[in-house]
Every structure is written in structure tokens, then in C-alpha cells.
């Protein structure tokens, strides 16, 4: 775990309880959604938090984004405690940590243009827009692979993959240090999903920020994670480098989870690549004749 350097984000012993039922009489039962979770995200890395529904992964993400308050535990960002931030300091934190959600359409205001959506975090932070709103939006759109001429369009005029790119552009607008991607590619068609995963990776290479990547799809996690934390029943059952978790899982539950993932036979993939190569060779030969 410790390589000497201070992690960007450190969450220790997080607990989140929710009240269930209850009324004027009595307190009702309590449900522990997150149960003593500790994790670290280092600068420039992607920590994937994986688990099935009800595992507490999304609640954990919300605690870290300060969209929910912790019942117990500490969150430190760049060495400073986060759970006690208020007012201006919380404002600043929200500029450094951005969230990209699962459903691009419901997380973008349908009545606002892309320009307004993308610049909103800056306006909200009362920060100047470098180079003016039009140019700033155009540059961001280009970086996420969208046509900058479309900055006056509305979310409904974009496809699902494009809408998710707008969500990513909005997150990038404030140059965050950490992006929390909460099932950000789960609702996308497979071909679009691949493009967005590639986009997320490219942006990280360019900018050097970190991801906290919340996902249920282990195959997607394999493509993007640096390290992986597996959650089950509100607890982290295993944390480790990606290849170690996938190739030699230590925990019983992780093994069960990995075994359940449907997979395309590797030997079929190998044969497909051979066939593809053969076809390309053939085509080249025919073209050369």
C-alpha cells in the first residue's frame, strides 16, 4: 500500500447508516450501507470500486464526493480533512473532485445548451472563464471528441455516447484532480462504451488526474483500472493491483465474482486474430498483383 508518497485521497473507516422505517414512535431499524471502508486513490491512478448491487460501492462514492455525509470515519483529500469542510472550502473541494454519472441524459439539464452546461461549474465557482465561454467550450468539446460547432445544441440532440462526453467535458471544465465515475459507461452500447473508455484513458494520460471508477462490470474494470477494490455487503473484501486481483484473487467472493463473468473463449479470439491477419495478407497480395 505505502510507497512513501502521500495519496491524493484517503478514506479511513467510513461508515454510512440509513434509517429504515420508523415514525413518530421509535427510531426504526438502521441499515449499514457502508461498513468500515478504507481506501486510497493515488495521483494519476485509477482505483476501481467493484461490486454487485447493494454492495455499497455507489454510497461510498457519494460519501467521498460529499453528496452524502458519513456516519463515521475520515476522508482526507490532498492531506486535508474533507468531512468537516463547509462554505468556501467545500466549494473549492467540489472544484477538485468531479462526478460523472451513469445516465448522461438525466444528469444534464435538458433545457440548457452544451455551452451553459459545460461552463456551469465555473460560473457556480465564480471563476473567470478562460478565453470566453464560446472558445472555452469549443476547446473542451474538441478534447472529448465532440464537434465544437455543436456548442449551442441541447442534450437531447446528442446520442447517448455523445451526451456522456458532454458530462465528461463538464467535469473537466474546472480541471479537477479526481474524477468519480459512477457507472459512467454502464448504460452505453458496447461500441460506444469502448470509445468512452478509451477517451477516459487518453484524458488521464494527458492531464494526470485520478479516477475513482465505480462499476459492476469486471471486464470494463480490467480495461481501465490501476488498482481494484472489491466490495460486498458494505465492506471491501479485497484490494490490490489490477492484474493481481484478476489473475490471482485471494478472497473467496472475488473468485466467485470472477468465475461468474461470461467470457468469449480466448482461443476463439486468438483464431479470429489469425484469420484477420490472413485476410489482410490476402488482400494485400491481391492489391499487389
Amino acid at each position: 500500500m505505502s510507497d512513501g508518497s502521500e495519496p491524493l485521497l484517503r478514506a479511513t473507516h467510513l461508515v454510512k447508516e440509513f434509517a429504515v422505517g420508523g415514525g413518530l414512535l421509535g427510531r426504526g431499524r438502521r441499515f449499514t450501507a457502508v461498513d468500515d471502508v478504507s481506501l486510497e486513490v493515488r495521483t494519476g491512478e485509477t482505483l476501481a470500486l467493484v461490486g454487485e448491487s447493494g454492495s455499497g460501492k455507489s454510497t461510498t462514492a457519494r460519501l467521498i464526493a460529499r453528496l452524502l455525509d458519513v456516519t463515521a470515519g475520515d476522508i482526507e483529500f490532498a492531506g486535508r480533512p474533507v468531512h468537516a469542510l463547509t462554505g468556501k472550502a467545500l466549494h473549492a473541494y467540489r472544484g477538485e473532485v468531479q462526478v460523472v454519472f451513469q445516465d448522461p441524459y438525466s444528469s444534464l439539464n435538458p433545457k440548457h445548451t452544451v455551452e451553459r452546461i459545460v461552463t456551469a461549474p465555473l460560473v457556480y465557482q465564480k471563476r473567470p472563464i478562460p478565453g470566453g465561454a464560446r472558445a472555452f467550450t469549443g476547446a473542451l468539446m474538441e478534447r472529448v471528441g465532440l464537434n465544437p460547432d455543436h456548442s449551442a445544441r441541447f442534450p437531447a440532440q446528442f446520442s447517448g455516447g455523445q451526451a456522456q462526453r458532454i458530462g465528461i467535458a463538464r467535469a473537466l471544465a474546472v480541471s479537477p484532480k479526481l474524477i468519480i465515475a459512477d457507472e459512467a459507461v454502464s448504460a452505453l452500447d458496447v461500441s460506444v462504451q469502448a470509445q468512452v473508455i478509451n477517451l477516459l484513458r487518453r484524458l488521464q494520460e494527458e492531464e494526470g488526474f485520478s479516477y475513482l471508477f465505480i462499476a459492476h462490470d469486471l471486464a470494463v474494470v480490467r480495461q481501465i483500472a490501476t488498482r481494484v477494490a472489491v466490495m460486498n455487503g458494505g465492506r471491501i473484501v479485497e484490494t490490490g493491483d489490477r492484474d493481481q486481483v484478476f489473475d490471482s484473487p485471494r478472497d473467496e467472493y472475488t473468485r466467485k465474482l470472477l468465475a461468474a463473468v461470461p467470457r468469449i473463449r480466448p482461443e476463439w479470439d486468438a483464431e479470429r486474430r489469425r484469420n484477420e491477419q490472413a485476410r489482410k495478407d490476402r488482400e494485400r497480395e491481391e492489391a499487389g498483383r
Partner: protein
Amino acid sequence: MSRFLLNRLLGMVVVLFLVCLFTFVVFFVLSPDPAVQICGKNCTPEAIDQIRENLGLDQPFLTQFWTFISGLFVGRTYGTGPNAIDCAAPCLGYSFQTSQPVADMIMQRLPVSATIAIGAAVLWLLAGIAGGLISAVREGRFADRFITGLTLTGMSIPNYVLALALQFLLVVTLGWLPFPQAVPFGDDPVQWFMNFLMPWIVLAIGAAAVYTRLTRANVIESLQENYVRTARAKGLSPGLVWRRHALRPALTPIVTIFGMDFANLLGGALITETVFGLNGIGKLAADSITKNDQPVIMGVTLLAAFLVVVGAMVVDLLYTAIDPRVRVGSAK
């Protein structure tokens, strides 16, 4: 389950207490001195003091309020000595105008209001559900558009206009109905029925329009449900699909508003009862407001609040019976 009930009962008591307090403040503290009013023209300051003392108006506010509340449960005694009058629980006091016990006045008129409410409710339920079903089945066709137009008219005509217009049309112009006259059911059932028919129709039309729209929307929505698709995929006949899988979910929410609407109406239909000269709770309320008869106003308000709160509770219980998701908790 019992915990749920207990919670509801406790909530009910709290709401009623707050209504009591609010009404008490408005009618007894903020309005002109009732003693002066009761005393009448030939009044002396001594007489006014005597009345104040008898009614307990000389006491501090909290004492007055406490006497009123406890009177509801254990009764109270007005005045002292040989002139003392016992008011048995539930004591709502005495009318300033007629000196009758308010509780008796209300009980006398409750049957009239109940008759009006039940009749109107039967009418609007039948018309509303039937209209909504026809509209939903013929969605987008002529019948649907016709009914939808009709409901718009029904919802937008004020009660008193409808009451007067109906009376003019059916009694004066066409002469189909006799002029309303209060007749006990036992004496002349036909006349009795005729007497109530117009108020029923007047009260039912607005509600029927709302229920039609609601039924239509609910049925159309429930036909879109995935389980309706499942029912069709199982090869059930259209009749079964409709009866079991579309209607029941569609009509359940109607129970909720029906309970509240009915309870509301039971507490008196102020305008309709006044227009048709029916001696129900609504008429009583209207009369007592114009005469500033505070104990009666208080009694009627409390009754209405009580009925609504009980109505809400009955709806909750009914819902528990109808919807298994409320009745049996998740087994997970």
C-alpha cells in the same frame, strides 16, 4: 402492523389537537366578545360579567382551552350553584343563538349530510369509473374526445351555478322534478328521492369529471405496464388481461382520493345545501358563520377535521388490504 396503526393513531391525535388549538384561537380569542353578543340589547355590565363567568371567558386562555378540550372527553359544567348546567361529553358547548347543545345540533343534521354524501358518491363513482373506462378503451377516438370535453365542462362549472341552473331547468322550465321539500323517507320515498336527486347530481358532476380523467389516465398507464405484456404473452384472454392485470392496479389509487373526498363531503356541502335549503351540516355552518355563532362554528370545524383525519386513516388501512407491497414487507 400494530406499530403502523399506533403511529397513525398518534399522528391523528396530534393533527386533531392542532386543529382544535387553531380553531380555538381564531374563533374565541380573535373574534369580538361573545358575551356582549349574547347579552343583547338591554344589557348591563353586570350581566355581561355574569355571562363571561358562566362561559368561563374570564379565565386565562390556557384554562379556557383546557376546559374546552377536557369537555370533549369528560364533559364540563357551565356556571356554579343552582344555575349550573351540565354538558355531557363530548361537550361542544351551547349555541349562542339557540342555546341548544352544539353536539345535538350536529347529530340532528348529520343524517341529511350523510344522505347527500352517500348518494353523490355512488353517482360520481359509477359515472367517473364508467366514463374513464370507456375513454381509455376508445383512446383517441370520438367517444374519448367527447368524454374528455365533457369532463372539462364538468370541472369548470362552479357548484352554485350548476345548482341554480339545474333547479331552473328541471323544476321551473321542464317541471320534471317537484320543488324540493324536506320529506322523511318513511312518509314518501319517491318525494324523498326526488328531493335529494338534484343535490346529488350537482355534487357528483364535478367529482365525476375528475374521477373520469383519473380512471382514464390510470387505465391507459396500467395497460403500458410490463406485467400486462407478460399476461398477454401467457396467452390470457383479453377479458382476463383487462380484469386482473389492467383494472385492479388502475383503480387502486382511486380508493385513496375517494376516501378523502367522501369524508370531506360528509362534513357538509356548504353551498349546495344552502342553495337547495337542505338542513345538513353545511347549512348549519353557513348559518352559524353569518351569525357569528362561535361554538357551532367550532363544532362543525372540528367535525370536518375529525372526518378527514379518520378518512385518511381508513384509506391507509384499505390500502394495506389492497396492496400486498404495503401489507407484507419484503422478505429480503
